[in-house]
């Protein structure tokens, strides 16, 4: 566990012990209002993917803000269990669950709350059916379509239709529709080129709905993800929900693609050494930032760039006037490159408003990977 100092509510945020994962609640709430507002005048609704923050308090704020289907999506069974225990009544586990013990856990959970699950092969569908029947529960099943991720998902077309028919015929399962994820932007992708690519991938998913309906199946849900493709998804008739996770807190990677939203989650670090003019050393290294998919970005110091993250240290290179800044004991702000990986390294968000601490919010589903 983290061993933070639980400062009193009202403590100025810059006085928090570091490294700390900090969220500006006003920015977060504005992001939620802005993004979920996109869904207010359309039949397409958002389904918040809580894997991005793992925090029931944030998920509750998302559902309260409108524009959603009223339910959430998770990635692991452990996350589903945490959120079910936190009172969420419509949970889509947008992933495959294949082992006997996990199917047992999944079906036990389905006895307590409404659970949706993704399926991409008929054998797995049969196992889920047996588990659900044994537990006296019902699972909502979405057939997962491969649409460019190169990951899970049945091949679009005949295979997908055949799988949907298998699911539809199995006891304990309720075939409700299809889901798919489309690849997010990478590095320097051009936003308009990325939009075109997303539209094509979304169409791959939608084509299966038509094919399944032709085969006599009723497809009530077409669930697509993620945050980056919401604008294209909203415009495509047939899509019913957009699974989106990163919009409340944002990260550096997504910023160019959602310019109306601002980073709400940042890492507060302290300078522990300024050994030469051109360099300051921070107390936040890769364990406190998880830069696996990209380095966090230093905010607010012109001429300062975070260039290296070893296990326990972050290195900031300083040019010009910046060389007189970031002295030992000073604070520095880092915007995560990839939110989910960073959140995974912490047990608490330090939530603040107007520069003052509001509270420590538990990242309750952290570490629930199994």
């Amino acid at each position, binding site marked *: 566990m983290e*061993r933070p100092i639980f400062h009193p509510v009202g403590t100025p945020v810059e006085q928090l012990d570091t490294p700390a994962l900090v969220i500006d609640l006003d920015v977060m709430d504005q992001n939620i209002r802005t993004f979920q507002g996109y869904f207010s005048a359309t039949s397409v609704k958002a389904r918040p993917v809580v894997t991005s923050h793992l925090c029931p308090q944030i998920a509750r704020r998302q559902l309260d803000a409108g524009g959603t289907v009223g339910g959430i999506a998770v990635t692991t069974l452990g996350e589903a269990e945490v959120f079910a225990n936190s009172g969420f009544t419509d949970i889509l586990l947008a992933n*495959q669950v294949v082992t006997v013990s996990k199917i047992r856990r999944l079906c036990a959970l389905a006895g307590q709350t409404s659970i949706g699950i993704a399926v991409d092969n008929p054998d797995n569908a049969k196992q889920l059916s047996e588990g659900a029947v044994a537990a006296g529960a019902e699972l909502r099943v979405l057939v997962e379509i491969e649409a460019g991720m190169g990951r899970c998902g049945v091949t679009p077309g005949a295979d997908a239709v055949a799988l949907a028919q298998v699911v539809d015929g199995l006891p304990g399962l309720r075939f409700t529709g299809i889901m798919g994820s489309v690849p997010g932007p990478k590095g320097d992708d051009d936003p308009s080129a990325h939009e075109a690519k997303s539209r094509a991938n979304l169409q791959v998913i939608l084509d299966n709905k038509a094919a399944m309906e032709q085969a006599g199946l009723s497809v009530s849900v077409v669930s697509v993800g993620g945050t980056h493709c919401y604008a294209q998804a909203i415009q495509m008739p047939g899509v019913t929900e957009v699974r989106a996770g990163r919009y409340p807190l944002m990260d550096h990677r997504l910023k160019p693609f959602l310019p109306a939203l601002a980073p709400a989650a940042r890492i507060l670090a302290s300078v522990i050494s300024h050994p030469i003019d051109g360099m300051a050393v921070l107390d936040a290294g890769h364990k406190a930032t998880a830069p696996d998919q990209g380095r966090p970005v230093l905010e607010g110091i012109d001429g300062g760039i975070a260039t290296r993250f070893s296990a326990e240290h972050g290195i900031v290179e300083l040019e010009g006037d910046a060389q007189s800044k970031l002295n*030992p004991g000073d604070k520095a702000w880092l915007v995560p490159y990839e939110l989910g990986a960073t959140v995974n390294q912490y047990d608490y968000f330090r939530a603040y408003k107007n520069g003052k601490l509001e509270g420590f919010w538990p990242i309750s589903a952290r570490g629930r990977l199994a």
Partner: protein
Amino acid sequence: MNEHYRPEPGTPMEDLETPCLVIDMDDLDHNMDVIADTYEGKSTKLRGHSKNHKTPAIAHRQIRRGGTVGGVCAAKVSEAEVMVHGGISSVFITSEIVEPMKIERLAALADQAEMLVACDQSSNARDLSKAAQARGVEISVVIELETGLARCGVRDTDSGVALAKEISALPGLRFRGVMSHQTIPDMPDREDRAVEAARTIKGVIDLKNAIEGEGILIDIVSTGETWSYDVAADIPGVTEIQGGSYLMMETHYSYMTEFHYAGKILATIISTPRPGVAIGDAGVRAVSSLSGMPTVFERPGVTVAALDSDHAVFKLESGASLKVGDQVLLIPAQQDAMVSRWDRFIGLRKGKVEVVWDITARGCHN
């Protein structure tokens, strides 16, 4: 934090919920014994770095098996707290501790255990002195010298000597010696490593000699990492080696064949959507891709082609096969990044659970 998942001793690996962090106890004990044997009868000993395992039980196990100074290194004050609360009697914090709140915590720990801390600036030494005096405790201070990492540390011998004089004169502080860190590119040949270690460690030996030339006593010269654990011990003057990666091991050190891959992520195949492709349930959040893709353990022809947040995409060469439900073990490119993502080790011997260790310092960033 996954508080409820604690498999019973005797549970076969096949029944474990995945992904999970497993440790092969035979391999762990072997790696510990390599250390014990290497330093037996030598004046140089290991001060194992707890940042690599974050688990007092593992620290105690190495101390019991031998080859150590009887204490550990820690990277952070909170990590040091976990080690002291876990019964370790000497902890060396190998980072500079500068914030007032953290200095207070360090001084409080010094009342419970021998505490050593790295220092590279005189204002910090004065702050440490004030806190130690106020509490009536003694904090041991070790000067860090920069020797190639371009990070913290005094930059030359003269500044090191000046700082040593200042620390020696400060009440509440006990000046103990000098430390340095180095990293090297892959260097499989032991002779090459010996030459590189001698070159990079020379600075810290020079600093030790210069400080002693001023009549100041030194009892600690702490240096090295896993890559130099053996060769640095042959350099006269070195008293302690800081090492931790050797315990779990990582592909980054694949050339150090005397150590075994003990720490791994156990994953399950959840989908085989296309020929030649299988999807596993462990991604970046489970294993990390920090210094490169993880390697699939003992499954020829299977490689990790991509790692998403929660999925591994395996590529299968012809002849290799994986089906839904199969388990796969992944060894990391960088083990400390992997360990930092988990709440417990599941210790397996001959494929069955022997012990479950809480990684109590996981998340100790501050």
